[in-house]
């Protein structure tokens, strides 16, 4: 399998690379600097475009790391003119800003001593934490948000069951993550563009962050960290402190928020939106939550995670009941409202399903349209042949698709 050559190849490659580096004459390094795509170890860092706004965050990060110095710098520092000669304030102007020289050999630690804090407004009982700063929410908006969260909950229950009955092919629920969907949307306006994506942290995420930071795009990256990528828990997915830490690495403001706290999500997105628009900058928001449901209708998550854990998040940390306590505490909601809402939503959804199921499936011609702006000749021919086949074998084809 992979191992025989893998061990050999990687060690041989490493030895070769080492040989190349060791045997290089003095001229070689400068030559490498002239050719940016040279060996990985020597590639140069291109200067960032635009202003130097991101620089202060880099300094702060470096500062924190000094506490965790890995090794003491060598007493006999090489006199190559680049290292500060004992003074502490020598610095170099480098693209991106000033960089101070230090005598200690400090490796940045792999993580900060404390994990990045999580912004929250409501405690587990739905009371506002004293001193918490949050965006005011009117009674009307508060009830609207709550109603939508309940609607989503009821919808998930009904459609999950519909899939189990074979009436729809596939469904993904939002159980345990209702506050994120609804409160983040509530903080946007109808003119904002939302590009939702069910995806995990893959390469395109990093490219997008980097592009947005460099282009100073007014965009909010809202990353829902629900702990799971199908069966893969986050500790097998990444080792950094979640997604929020990536913001700084790309020179972008970021915030971590309690994803099960509707008010915190709303406030964070509201403020992020203001900053993005007024200051022309991207913002990264990481919402901590838990995927209470299975990944999809094709998944049984009890096979790879403890039922207790799911149950804890489903009950104690449920975002809908937490938010309801706050709304109800304001005197804006009562038990009668609750049962009326749930009943209405259920009726509405069942009715909608009935209507949808009675709707005819799209006609056959639509199989061939929208592949390109116009139907090309190969598809026109294939449609003609298919129609001939259907005429000859009508029993092979579903009767509910109009031919």
């Amino acid at each position, binding site marked *: 399998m992979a191992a025989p050559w893998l061990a050999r190849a990687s060690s041989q490659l490493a030895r070769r690379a080492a040989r190349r580096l060791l045997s290089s004459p003095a001229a070689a390094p400068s030559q490498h600097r002239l050719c940016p795509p040279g060996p990985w170890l020597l590639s140069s860092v291109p200067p960032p475009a635009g202003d130097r706004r991101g620089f202060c965050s880099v300094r702060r990060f470096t500062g924190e790391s000094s506490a965790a110095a890995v090794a003491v710098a060598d007493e006999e520092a090489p006199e190559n003119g680049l290292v500060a000669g004992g003074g502490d304030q020598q610095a170099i102007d480098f693209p991106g800003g000033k960089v101070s020289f230090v005598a200690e050999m400090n490796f940045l630690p792999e993580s900060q001593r404390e994990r990045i804090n999580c912004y929250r407004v409501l405690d587990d009982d739905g009371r506002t934490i004293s001193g918490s700063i949050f965006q005011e929410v009117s009674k009307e908006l508060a009830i609207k948000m709550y109603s939508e969260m309940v609607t989503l909950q009821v919808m998930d229950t009904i459609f999950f069951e519909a899939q189990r009955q074979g009436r729809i092919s596939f469904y993904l629920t939002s159980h345990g993550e209702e506050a994120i969907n609804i409160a983040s949307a509530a903080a946007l306006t109808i003119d904002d563009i939302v590009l939702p994506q069910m995806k*995990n942290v893959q390469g395109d995420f990093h490219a997008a962050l980097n592009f947005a930071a460099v282009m100073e795009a007014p965009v909010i990256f809202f990353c829902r960290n629900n702990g799971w990528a199908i069966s893969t828990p986050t500790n097998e997915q990444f080792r950094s402190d979640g997604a929020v830490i990536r913001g700084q690495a790309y020179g972008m403001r970021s915030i971590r928020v309690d994803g099960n706290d509707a008010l915190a999500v709303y406030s964070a997105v509201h403020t992020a939106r203001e900053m993005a628009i007024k200051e022309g900058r991207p913002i990264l928001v990481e919402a901590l939550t838990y995927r209470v449901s299975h990944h999809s209708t094709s998944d049984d998550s009890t096979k790879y995670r403890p039922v207790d854990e799911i149950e804890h998040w489903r009950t104690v940390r449920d975002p809908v009941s937490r938010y309801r306590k706050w709304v109800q505490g304001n005197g804006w909601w009562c038990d009668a409202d609750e049962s009326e809402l749930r009943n209405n939503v259920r009726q509405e959804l069942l009715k909608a399903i009935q209507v949808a199921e009675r709707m005819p499936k799209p006609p056959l011609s639509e199989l061939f349209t929208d592949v390109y702006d116009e139907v090309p000749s190969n*598809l026109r021919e294939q449609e003609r042949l298919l129609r001939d086949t259907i005429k000859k074998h009508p029993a092979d084809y579903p009767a509910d698709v109009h031919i």
Partner: protein
Amino acid sequence: MAAKALRELGRIRRAAAAAGIGRRDFSGDAAAAAAVADRKGGGGKEVNLFTAINQALHIALDTDPRSYVFGEDVGFGGVFRCTTGLADRFGRNRVFNTPLCEQGIAGFAVGLAAMIVNEAAKFRYRSGNEFNCGGLTIRSPYGAVGHGGHYHSQSPEAFFCHVPGLKVVIPRSPREAKGLLLASIRDPNPVVFFEPKWLYRLAVEKVPEEDYMLPLSQAEVIRNGSDITLIGWGAQLAVLEQACEDAAKDGISCELIDLRTLIPWDRETVEASVSKTGKLLVSHEAPITGGFGAEIAASITERCFQRLEAPVARVCGLDTPFPLVYETFYLPTKNKVLDAIKATVNY
């Protein structure tokens, strides 16, 4: 409550639809798949395709201490249950989940941050045979499954056939899957191994429990005939088998070949068959244009032009994205194949 009301609705709807036509007949196809396999006879327990794959992986890890299995969700047994029990038996050092990053998974397997096409496939060529990616087998589900829609039903085998250095292998049944997978894992070249999604649970046949390999790049004639040669791979073999049965009722004798390895493919077996029958039909689920059937048709036309008595027929998927509602319309179904057999034989 909601569920109950919904079930009510369901009953009404099902009653209304009872007169209509169902989806693709899976049970019939599965029976045909089993029939294709049964002809070979042989021992072992009756198992489905994912179990056969699982057996092969157990054997591969057991017989080579330097073998590994890694990918998305393989740790708990996999979305299709193919890796069940591997992590418990061989430990997390050899069977492990990777971050969900396909480029990373492939790159890790190559030992460099790189990918299938540019690194795995060309490693031997570019290093003058100093290094190679033999031992790397990339398993991937593929093909129609009745409800997969645009993303989960595609047949991308032709993409990979266009990458010199890679082998592409597709089994048609559980027994084939086990023997071909073990051969792929132990082959000194990188292999992309496509497993027909549709057959994971539906195809059941007797699979020997021991370690065995089936040869790569060797097509198998699974039905002898004299009037026309039919070529396919994977789940499509079951459809072709049904078409052969029906054609036989009309007195047409079909020779059915499972290509098994798409590249490098066994032209000799196909050529010998076409030389005998004088007619050829190729069938695959992937879109017809630029599909691997086109390569077979061109190649056989070159080699057998004098002996061909009719144009090579192709019965394939349409040149559209794989549709959800229109899946039955898209697929190269038995009757499409049968019509093409008759048209070719009567050319």
